[in-house]
C-alpha cells in the first residue's frame, strides 16, 4: 500500500462570468496594481489516496474530480500530483 498525494484545482469555465474574480480585479487598482487584466478565483483541493497500484491513483482522482469534486456544467479542473512527504494522512489516521 502506498499513499499518493494530489491537488485538484477547480475554476469556473471560460466564458462564465466569475463574480469573485471580477470583484478582486476591481479592487486591485485601488491598491496601485492597475495592470491586472484577468483574475479567476477557484478552489484548491488536496487529497491523499491509499492505493495498491500507484498507476491507478491518478485515474481515480480524475474520476472523483469529474463526478463529484466539480460540476461539469460550470467548472473545469486540473489534477497535479504532489510530492509524497508530509501528507495530511501520512500516519494513516485520517479523520473519519
Amino acid at each position: 500500500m502506498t499513499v499518493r498525494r494530489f491537488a485538484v484545482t477547480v475554476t469556473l469555465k471560460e466564458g462564465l462570468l466569475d463574480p469573485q474574480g471580477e470583484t478582486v480585479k476591481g479592487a486591485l487598482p485601488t491598491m496601485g496594481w492597475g495592470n491586472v487584466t484577468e483574475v479567476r478565483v477557484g478552489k484548491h483541493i488536496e487529497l491523499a489516496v491509499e492505493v495498491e497500484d500507484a498507476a491507478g491513483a491518478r485515474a481515480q482522482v480524475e474520476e472523483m474530480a469529474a463526478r463529484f469534486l466539480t460540476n461539469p456544467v460550470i467548472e473545469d479542473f486540473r489534477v497535479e500530483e504532489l510530492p509524497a512527504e508530509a501528507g495530511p494522512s501520512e500516519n494513516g489516521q485520517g479523520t473519519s
Partner: protein
Amino acid sequence: MTRRPRVAVITFPGSNDDRDAARAIRLLGGEAVPVWHGEADLGGADAVILPGGFSHGDYLRTGAIARFAPALGAVREHAATGRPVLGICNGFQILCEAGLLPGALIRNRSLSFICRVVHVRVETRRTPFTAQLSEGEVLDIPIKHGEGQFVATPGELARIEGEGLAVFRYCTPDGEVSEEANPNGAMDGIAGVRDERGNVVGLMPHPEHAVDPDIGPTGGQPLFESLFAELLATLS
C-alpha cells in the same frame, strides 16, 4: 378523490424552509408528509418538495452533497413516473446537481446575499405548478439567496430556450424582462426551469413564503393551488 393531496417535504441537514413549505401545503389544503433525507421512501406522496436552506453547509458546492441522500433515489423514481417534483432555492440547486434539471446556480453577480420580494413572469403552463396559471402572468415572490445566478453552457442554454424549459423569469412589475429587474445576473433572467417532461421544476424564489396575506405578498399561492388542482384531477 376523498383524500387531500399528499406532498412530501424532504429535510436535509441544513434545510431551514421545510416547515414553511409544510405550512404552505396545509394552508392551501394539502397534507404535508415530512421525510428525512436518510429515508429512501416518500411515504406514498403524490408530489415532493425539496425545500430551501443550506444542506450540508453548502460545502463543496450548493446541493453537491445532498444529491447523494437516499431520499434523492426516491425522488428520482418519483420523477421518472411523471409525478410532480418542486425544488425551491437550495432544493433547486440540489435538483441541478442531481442532473434532474438543466443548468447550475452560482454566486450572485453582486456577490451579495439578496433578500427581497421580486417579480417573476410565468413563461410556460407546461408544469403542474403553472398549469392553472396564465403565460405572462406576474407573481410577487421573495428571494433570499447568495448563490442564485442561473447559468448554463451556451449549448444547454440554447436547448433550454429552444424547448421552452424556462418556467419563470425575473421581470418588472409590468412583466418586462430586463437587466434592471434581474437581481442576481441569471442568464436570460431565468428564475426557474423545468425538465423536458415538465413534472420536475426548480426555482430560486420562495413560493412557500408567499401564501399568507397577513405577512406579505401571496404570489406563491397560485403554484400550490395549481399543483393541488392538477393532483385532484389526476387522482380522482
